[in-house]
């Protein structure tokens, strides 16, 4: 079985929309069944009277997590092709706190508000209107807070990678934690909500019978235990190549990043991408773009990076990078870009930008500021022939310089839409 099916090209975008609709129906159905169309039931979580939110959420998490572990462990799902939202720690902490506060005030989260509105709850409809207003507000202030939203970037990273622990062990730990939380939740419901756990619906209680609910928890715990010793999930290497798609993308040049754009990324401190320098180690040693890592083309094996990691390739010009781009695309890497013009172009347009003669240009002043940031020198058009690059090249270490004004990224539109929420 080659899964995720969509990533293996088993069907196209049109079919994926139908699947989206069906999956959404399932999502909405179970949210409503759980009682999540009711703000009172949701909010009761935060007064410890009804811990349905905790129970539903963690049961769903451990069900999907253990299921995915088993399927990927036996090679049926390529885990590296399942999209992972990149981690930006501080923004996600701040966003989480805001969501928590909004949850208590509004009574819903975005998903449950849809279900609430669909079942006629006026407060759910008003909540959706408020959310749309909030999104518009965020969009309007985004240019001013773009640096904040990109801070503390850690890339696509999982807890097993962070703690350097086996994937399956973390799966087991989360299952145990969830079951512990269920028991604590039932206890709290009894103490604060005055709810006597009913014999059929609860995990803890006087009855020793193996009720269906207890069997479910036991089943999940057994799979978790298997995961603890089961080894690592499969992150595959095989893929199918859509040659037409590749050819189209080559001809449209959509996977090229301009050096100026890379300079902006570095200045903004973004590190949700990996800059790979393909040149010979000696060239790399004499100068390289800050944050680049030297990887010879022969080392671009299927496991050199996660398959959905954003990889930016550079060589002296674009030629070797283009070869490596094709190699990586063929190996199933999903997010590969080329630095347009390579290190040569980086030097020409970022380090040593040339001022058009006799013009006073705001845009050039900004370029000059960028050049100085990277230790280069802005040049005027008559200051020597274009072929000579002043030696020595700037030191690799990044000089401390004042922050540049926020840059607009209107220079290049992403060729693919955002995949995450």
């Amino acid at each position: 079985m080659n899964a995720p099916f969509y990533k293996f090209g088993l069907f196209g975008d049109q079919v994926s929309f139908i699947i989206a609709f069906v999956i959404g129906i399932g999502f909405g159905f179970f949210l409503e069944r759980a009682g999540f169309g009711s703000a009172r039931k949701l909010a009761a979580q935060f007064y410890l009277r009804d811990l349905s939110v905790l129970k539903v959420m963690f049961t769903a998490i451990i069900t999907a997590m253990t299921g995915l572990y088993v399927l990927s462990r036996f090679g049926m799902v390529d885990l590296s092709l399942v999209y992972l939202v990149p981690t930006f720690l501080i923004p996600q902490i701040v966003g989480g706190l805001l969501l928590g506060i909004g949850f208590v005030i509004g009574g819903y989260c975005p998903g449950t508000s849809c279900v609430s509105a669909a079942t006629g709850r006026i407060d759910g409809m008003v909540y959706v209107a408020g959310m749309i207003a909030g999104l518009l507000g965020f969009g309007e202030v985004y240019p001013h807070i773009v640096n904040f939203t990109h801070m503390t970037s850690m890339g696509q990273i999982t807890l097993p990678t962070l703690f350097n622990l086996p994937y399956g062990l973390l799966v087991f730990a989360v299952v145990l934690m969830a079951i512990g939380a269920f028991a604590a939740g039932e206890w709290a419901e009894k103490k604060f909500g005055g709810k006597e756990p009913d014999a059929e619906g609860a995990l803890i209680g006087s009855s020793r019978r193996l009720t269906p609910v207890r069997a479910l928890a036991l089943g999940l715990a057994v799979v978790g235990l298997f995961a603890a010793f089961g080894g690592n999930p499969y992150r595959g290497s095989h893929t199918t190549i859509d040659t037409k798609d590749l050819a189209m993308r080559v001809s449209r040049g959509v996977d090229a990043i301009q050096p100026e754009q890379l300079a902006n990324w570095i200045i903004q401190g973004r590190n949700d991408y990996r800059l790979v320098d393909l040149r010979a180690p000696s060239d790399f040693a004499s100068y390289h773009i800050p944050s680049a890592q030297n990887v010879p083309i022969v080392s671009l094996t299927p496991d050199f990076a996660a398959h959905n990691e954003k990889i930016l390739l550079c060589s002296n010009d674009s030629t070797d990078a283009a070869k490596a781009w094709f190699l990586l695309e063929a190996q199933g890497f999903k997010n590969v870009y080329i630095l347009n013009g390579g290190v040569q172009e980086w030097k020409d347009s970022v380090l040593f930008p040339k001022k058009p003669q006799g013009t006073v240009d705001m845009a050039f002043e900004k370029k000059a500021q960028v050049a100085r940031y990277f230790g280069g020198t802005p040049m005027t058009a008559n200051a020597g022939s274009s072929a000579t690059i002043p030696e020595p090249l700037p030191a690799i270490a990044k000089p401390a310089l004042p922050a540049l004004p926020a840059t607009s990224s209107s220079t290049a539109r992403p060729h693919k839409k955002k995949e995450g929420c």
Partner: protein
Amino acid sequence: MNSQTHAPKPYWNSYWAGFGLGLVLLASFVIMGRGLGASGAFTTAVATAVDTVAPTHAANNAFYQEYLGDGTTNPLMDWLVFEVLGVFVGGFLSGVLANRLSLSIEKGPRIASGRRLLFAFIGGGLMGIGAKIALGCTSGQALTGGALLNVGSWAFMWCVFGGAYAVAYFFRKQWI
């Protein structure tokens, strides 16, 4: 027809509802290679609306651009948009089958309807902002990222609970 057939049916047991939800999420991973979401669809709708009303303004804003794509496709032809349409339909179907459709306001006994609706609007607004700062909401981050052992999602999840419990006391009159 007696009145009993019109009484709302009880909610499902949380563990079974959660199990069903987990299977839907797993199906999404296996079929699509991505998880569930909610706020992203509304963001696409907002970005499209801005693009329609003020195209130049939208073109100069990297945030809207990210949701509008490269202009070669209609931004509303988007996976999450269809998924969220499904959420409305699925919620409606479940509500119909359980006699839970009613034009009403969910609130505690100690708060007026107008005030509750104001709070719903403010809470929705905060959630909209928070979801974009965090790159996802309870669906896209906590649920999906939680199941994928995503570092940021787990930090996010604890902060949602932490933030909610920290302020719950001040809003108790709305609910209990």
